């Protein structure tokens, strides 16, 4: 197990939302929990991963994510069981879509 914590730059998100969960903690997959919290121009991402030693790849995937989405002011926590970078990006996209869809 490795715990990695990042803060990436991102445009501000709508933050008055209920928390959103997508994905599952399962082999080759990950679950992503999105909550409001933190500085409006930053996205804090806390990763718990079963795969050791992939810090630079996480950094790159999460930086791309920050550029793609208005995720500023969000707090994201990921439980990963060896999802590939493509799967992680997909789950993050799915999570932000669910966050934005929620009209609560």
């Amino acid at each position, binding site marked *: *197990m490795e715990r990695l914590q990042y803060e990436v730059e991102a445009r501000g998100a709508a933050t008055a939302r209920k*928390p959103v*969960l997508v994905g*599952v*903690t*399962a082999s080759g*997959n990950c*679950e992503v*929990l999105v*909550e409001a919290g933190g500085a409006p121009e930053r996205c804090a991402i806390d990763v*718990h*991963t*079963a795969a050791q030693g992939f810090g630079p790849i996480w950094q790159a995937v999460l930086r791309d994510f920050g550029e793609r989405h208005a995720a500023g002011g969000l707090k994201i*926590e990921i*439980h*990963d*069981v060896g999802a590939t970078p493509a799967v992680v990006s997909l789950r993050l996209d799915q999570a932000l879509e669910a966050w934005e869809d929620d009209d609560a």
Partner: protein
Amino acid sequence: MRKRFFEASARERVHGVVDTDSFHEFLPPEARVSSPHMVMLEQPAAFDDGIVVGAATLDGRPVLVAAQEGAFLGGAIGEVHGAKLVGLIERARAERPAAVVILFDSGGVRLHEANAGLIAVSEIIRAVLGARAEGLRFIGLIGGAGGCFGGTGLIARCCDALVMSEEGRLAMSGPEVIETVRGVEEFDSRDRALVWRVTGGKHRYLLGEADAFVEDDIEAFRAAAIHLLDTPAEFSLESVEREHARLAERWQRFGSSTDAPEIWQALGVPADADVAMMNADEFVAMAAHCPGRNA
């Protein structure tokens, strides 16, 4: 368009089975009530420990609902997972909903948590039987990829009624466990036709263990669960003794059978019936004419 139960996540199933927008989750993911054991074992946890619990309405009537997430550790029951289910049942004893609906998708005890998982299973069984003795109704739905095996199979058979799809599987020892313990000659766990013949929903329905048989469709599971809210349910010493006698007789009759179709034919399924290829309506209509079903 039909939405498959088999493919859906635990949360998607719950939202599809209960009335639209009626579900209120207890201890949702952001509460982070997850397993302390997985952390100690240096393994990733799930925010909800693999089970969704909450309150909802079903056809306008209050129900408490639990759904296991089969994709997380095979839906296996750990300490927290079990405690969430026991807590829901205790709440049911206080609130008296029309039913407790449990969407099973689990291979049984979570081996990572050993005794804590075993104790959780026994606590769930005790809670179910205690609540049933007070007149509460338990409806189980089985149609997930993880099936319903081991301790979870025991819990399911402690319910008043079960709904199964063909894809759903129910048994005590799972196929791989049997193969590991008794050898591939006894049971080839990779023979998918064999696995579904002897553990699948059609077999369980013919044996009278599943009360309703439906297509792999969340809406069909919902309709069956609504129907079961009002069917007669009995739980007494006499009903348990009757069930034990029925099982003992079944063992006498079928204990030496080597495959499911032998049993089906003894129950009255026509020898030329292509059971595996029948859709739910055809199968249920055929089963209705089996003199031996539920006998």
